[in-house]
């Protein structure tokens, strides 16, 4: 009965939604507002060799990306507050020697790849967050195969409160630096190419490392 009701509700919602969606300007045609207004300006101003998505993320809409790293940070502290006190972790699994060997074998390569993704993000697909997910996934993989203790060993205990905030902190630093050099918070100084590059890389690294620590801690908070 309840299922029927819900299905009826979902259908009832879907019909006007589909009607409205179908009435949108035809997607893919180059003359609709989405291509002729702001986006066109971004593409016309694009530098010689750059990933425009990363440029939008870090430069034009840097505030959103700052918000985004604060969102995952907020999720982490919310989960940490929720954590039960004094709960026993699950016993560590006994890993198969083959799986263990393979995981140990690929771990350094994956880490290298993750840093590659983080550092080349402003010219190719990728960036801080994607690298963070790969690094975090690496820790998760080790945790699932060898037990949470092994995953915890990846994280430096003393520096943890600073590292987990690396993303927002990097943004704050870049924001202040930009404010000093360009006169606007979160601006990137086009007239100082070295500093510009350093700020981009710094922010990407901050997002990458901070994100990886956050993903790993989220997993650890749930596992133990």
């Amino acid at each position, binding site marked *: 009965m309840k299922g029927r009701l819900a299905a009826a509700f979902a259908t009832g919602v879907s019909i006007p939604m589909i009607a409205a969606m179908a009435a949108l300007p035809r997607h893919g045609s180059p003359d609709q507002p989405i291509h002729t207004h702001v986006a066109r300006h971004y593409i016309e101003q694009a530098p010689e060799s750059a990933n425009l998505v990363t440029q939008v993320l870090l430069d034009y809409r840097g505030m959103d990306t700052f918000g985004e790293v604060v969102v995952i940070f907020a999720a982490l502290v919310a989960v940490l507050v929720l954590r039960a006190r004094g709960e026993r972790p699950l016993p560590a699994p006994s890993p198969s020697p083959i799986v263990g060997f393979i995981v140990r074998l690929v771990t350094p390569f994956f880490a290298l790849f993750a840093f590659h993704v983080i550092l080349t993000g402003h010219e190719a*697909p*990728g960036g801080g967050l994607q690298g963070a*997910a790969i690094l975090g*996934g690496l820790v998760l993989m080790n945790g699932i195969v060898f037990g949470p203790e092994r995953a915890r060993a990846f994280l430096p205990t003393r520096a943890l409160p600073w590292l987990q905030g690396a993303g927002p902190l990097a943004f704050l630093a870049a924001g202040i630096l930009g404010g000093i050099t360009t006169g606007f918070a979160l601006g990137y100084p086009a007239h100082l190419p070295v500093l510009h590059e350093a700020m981009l890389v710094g922010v990407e690294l901050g997002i990458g490392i901070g994100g990886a620590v956050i993903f790993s801690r989220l997993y650890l908070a749930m*596992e133990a």
Partner: protein
Amino acid sequence: MNELFDLVLLGLLVLTALAVARSRDLAGAAILFAAYSLTLCLLWQHRGAPDVALTEAAVGAGVTTFLFLVVIARTSE
């Protein structure tokens, strides 16, 4: 040909989403959800959004599924 590929992917998406919705087995649903995410990722790669595809693969299909599986394992004892 291009459109056909898109159509197949869209159909697959709807199918996997329905499968997630109908599945009684939680772990199975989590895996189906990963399949759904990866299909979406293919669609986006094909649509010229490699960044989004990469993120969806790493975060949506990877981390989210991991978290689902961990929680399912801990709550089905």
